[in-house]
């Protein structure tokens, strides 16, 4: 009975919250600057959103692993608890097609995270957030490379629009820069696997090291909607007046345990289009070195602004 009463109180409170009027900025705004959701580098803002990301790349040879074509479909959902605090849940499904051997399909590890948008400076078009993400080890399939160890990633994020540049350089004002930096800390230093040789019966041990890595990513964006509406109407029509050409630089540097100092990453030129409820994006992924791969890959994004689709229900913060 007490449980039913508690649920009734929570339900009533929820209905009251839904009925309250609010005026909010919601997704990716700092003043007149709209920051889109980017494909490879995490965003510096918190919003109610649902993203579908499809990526295809060819992984280089790693030790005994042959070069492998990798196609990944990821889903990420973020829900705001308050206007500044959001929780996220992400998952992925992978299809691996190695040059030698059979194909593998399976889910990657689940990711859960929290992000807090600490600073929003409208006049400077600046954002700053911090967060914590956890990849939950053992929730995905080992056959597609999902680790058995969990990884915690404390992160910081920033976004800065250049709308405050002087009027003498008007065509630089639509530029914006965003960045994300994270330390990826495994919860175990290593995993030791004991195997029995089926022929000789001998025991052998294999040690897999789990290094700490540092993710660092930047995006450079040129917002054509900003150019048209706030700088100079150059006569762009749809769909070009809602496009944002950009380049992303998602990088990762290994810090210890056998790979210290090694950096991998890609340079991703691409384009984003945003509408009232959705955002679409496409990028090429160009490896920066042989360790990162030899082939150009591709990323495709379909992103839904839940706060715009359901402004009075699902898209509102739980505690506005």
């Amino acid at each position, binding site marked *: 009975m007490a449980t039913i009463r508690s649920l009734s109180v929570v339900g009533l409170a929820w209905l009251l919250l839904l009925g309250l*009027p*609010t*005026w*909010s*900025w*919601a*997704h990716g*705004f700092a*003043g*007149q600057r*709209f920051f889109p959701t980017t494909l490879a580098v995490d965003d510096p803002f918190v919003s109610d959103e649902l993203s*579908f990301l*499809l990526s295809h790349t060819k992984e280089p040879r790693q030790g005994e692993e042959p070069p492998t074509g990798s*196609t990944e*479909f990821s889903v990420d959902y973020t829900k705001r608890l308050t206007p500044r605090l959001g929780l996220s849940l992400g998952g992925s*499904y992978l*299809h691996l097609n190695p040059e030698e051997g059979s194909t593998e*399909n399976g889910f990657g590890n689940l990711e859960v995270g929290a992000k807090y948008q600490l600073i929003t400076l*409208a006049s400077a078009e600046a954002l700053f957030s911090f967060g914590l993400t956890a990849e939950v080890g053992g929730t995905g399939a080992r056959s597609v490379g999902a680790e058995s160890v969990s990884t915690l990633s404390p992160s910081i994020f920033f976004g800065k629009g250049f709308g405050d540049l002087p*009027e003498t350089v*008007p065509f630089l004002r639509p530029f914006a820069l965003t960045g994300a930096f994270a330390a990826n800390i495994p919860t175990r230093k290593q995993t030791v696997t004991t195997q029995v040789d089926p022929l000789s019966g001998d025991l052998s041990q294999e040690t897999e090291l789990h290094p700490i890595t540092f993710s660092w990513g930047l995006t450079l964006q040129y917002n054509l*909607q900003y150019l*048209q*509406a*706030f*700088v*100079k*109407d150059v006569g762009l029509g749809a769909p070009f007046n809602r496009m944002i050409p950009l380049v992303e630089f998602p990088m990762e540097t290994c810090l210890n345990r056998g790979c210290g100092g090694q950096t991998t990453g890609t340079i991703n030129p691409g384009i984003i289009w945003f*509408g*009232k*409820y*959705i955002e679409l994006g496409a990028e090429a992924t160009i490896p920066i070195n042989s360790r990162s791969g030899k082939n150009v890959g591709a990323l495709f994004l*379909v992103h*839904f*602004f839940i*706060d*715009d*689709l359901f*402004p*009075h229900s699902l898209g509102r913060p739980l505690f506005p």
Partner: protein
Amino acid sequence: MRPYQVPIAVCGLALVWCGLQTAWGHAFPERSDPPAGATVAVAPALVRIWFDAALEPAFSSLRVQTARGQPIPHEEGQVDASNAALLTVRLPPLASGTYRVLWSVVARDGHRTEGTYTFTVQ
């Protein structure tokens, strides 16, 4: 259906569904008169900004000031009575110079957007 067709189908259905939704969402400016960054030969009698969503008249404003930030005496900017997505303000005769337009709007769903741009009268 092959496995890779599932996400494509989900995204496709979601996109169609989005297209059927009522026009909620943040209000973005579609175009303005005078346009952003324009130089006009004749001083405009009105500043008009067309948005892509209906606006809340009580919480939407439009002001014009000189490039140095001095306010121009004019009537209050308002949402057009016959077009809820049009924000307009009537101006007194303007001398030659550069003027800054400042707007702030709340869309019907409660989302706020704002912006500023300049135009020049020859």
